[in-house]
């Protein structure tokens, strides 16, 4: 068994020990995870971002226009002092402005227009037979929208429609919760498989 497997096995057990109660072994594993993660992200950021995209092209290849993002990046450090705080607003403003400019049309198209067009579909197929899926989708969208319409009291027929919307919401929440449980179980099963197969070698 290699050292990596032993370390991974012991750390997995240390993390699982939290299920009994908080303890120093768990804390050690937790701090180790945080420290290693931050260290790893720092190294990746330094190598793959700062060196690869900024310093090497700027210093080795002479791409002088990269001075502009370098200055913008340096201005962000202005946040650490009261007198230079205003300078940091220049790159922040640039990021918010360009970010919003890129994101708003993309999100409007991808999350609203395309989803609306997928909702508006024929309620019957080509032979005139009702399409149950299409009916459920349109009923779900309209009744759920009714539930989130707060300019009118949810009473009478409108209240009934909004109440149907809550059932669709419940189905969504239930499905999402079910999938989340499934996901967490998968993670646990993955670790148990590692412990039983690679670490303890009880199964193949």
């Amino acid at each position, binding site marked *: 068994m290699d050292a990596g497997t032993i370390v991974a096995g012991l750390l997995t057990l240390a993390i699982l020990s939290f299920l009994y109660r908080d303890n120093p072994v768990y804390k050690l594993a937790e701090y180790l995870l945080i420290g290693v993660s931050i260290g790893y992200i720092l190294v990746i950021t330094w190598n793959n971002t700062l060196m*690869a995209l900024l310093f090497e092209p700027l210093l080795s290849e002479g791409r002088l226009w990269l001075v502009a993002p370098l200055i913008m990046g340096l201005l962000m450090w202005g946040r650490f002092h009261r007198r230079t705080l205003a300078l940091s607003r220049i790159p922040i403003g640039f990021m918010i402005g360009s970010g919003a400019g890129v994101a708003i049309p993309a999100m409007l198209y991808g*999350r609203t227009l395309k989803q609306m067009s997928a909702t508006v579909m024929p309620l019957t197929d080509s032979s005139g037979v009702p399409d149950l899926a299409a009916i459920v989708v349109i009923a779900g969208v309209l009744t759920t929208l009714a539930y989130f319409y707060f300019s009118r009291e949810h009473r009478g027929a409108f209240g009934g429609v909004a109440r149907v919307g809550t059932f669709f919401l419940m189905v969504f929440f239930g499905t999402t919760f079910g*999938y989340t449980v*499934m996901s967490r179980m998968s993670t*646990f*099963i993955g670790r148990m*498989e590692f412990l039983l197969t690679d670490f303890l070698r009880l199964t193949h």
Partner: protein
Amino acid sequence: MRRLQARHYTFLGLAVVITVTMLLNIRLDTRVSPYTRALHDYIESLPPGSVLMVSFDHEASSLPEIRPIARSVLRHAFRKGHRLIGVSLLAEGTLIGYRLMQETAAEYGRQYGSDYVYLGFRPQYIAAILAMGESIRDTYPRDYLGRPYDQFELLRSVENYDDVAAVLSIADGSLTTHWMEYGQARYGVVVLGAVTAAMATTYDPYLASAQMHAMMAGLRGAAEYEKLIGIGGGGARGMLAQSSAHLYVILLIVLGNVAYFVRRREGRRD
């Protein structure tokens, strides 16, 4: 030693259920869902040698679930003779993606540089997706190990998404959404998803609107995919444990509700 509480018995029960079912080593037969089949059929339909971009958009913590998902689809792609370009839009997924590609490529004797290349991480995922739509070479002048882009036979013929058959986003969060909103909407690249189960309901509407071409989700998706390609893996191995764990959770929910109603009835009597 403290007295064990109800939650301890709950955890212990779950650990026993999963350990016993895994030691039994029984493989459950899985019914393949249309979504997973669509993903399989798309990769199967591509001519050998097609270029696929695989984006490892996940963190290290989701590796136990991501690993069987990624391995099954990577095995299929390598077995079919497709050429893969690996990227990562989350720093934590970078090394995991590299190792997964390396391990799977070795199983099929695929060579780095001609059959697959790993380009690594780029920050600001939206900017990275948009930049690759213009030029992958400019976005990644070097590969993950620092070697120049044009050194690799595979990359010489790849300029942008026009030269890529599809992007497969292996994700544990919402990053696949950005591939659809920027890669698919703006550059028309086909987006495929291989995601954790928790994200399945997030991406369902995108499948319905055809913004995502196909998707496999969770350990179950991995088991289905393994069945389709006829190669056993972590998905199939974990399905009995997964099903047993779900039955255990259902049992706990039923017991919890019965206890609640019994207690409520007793409270009314008092």
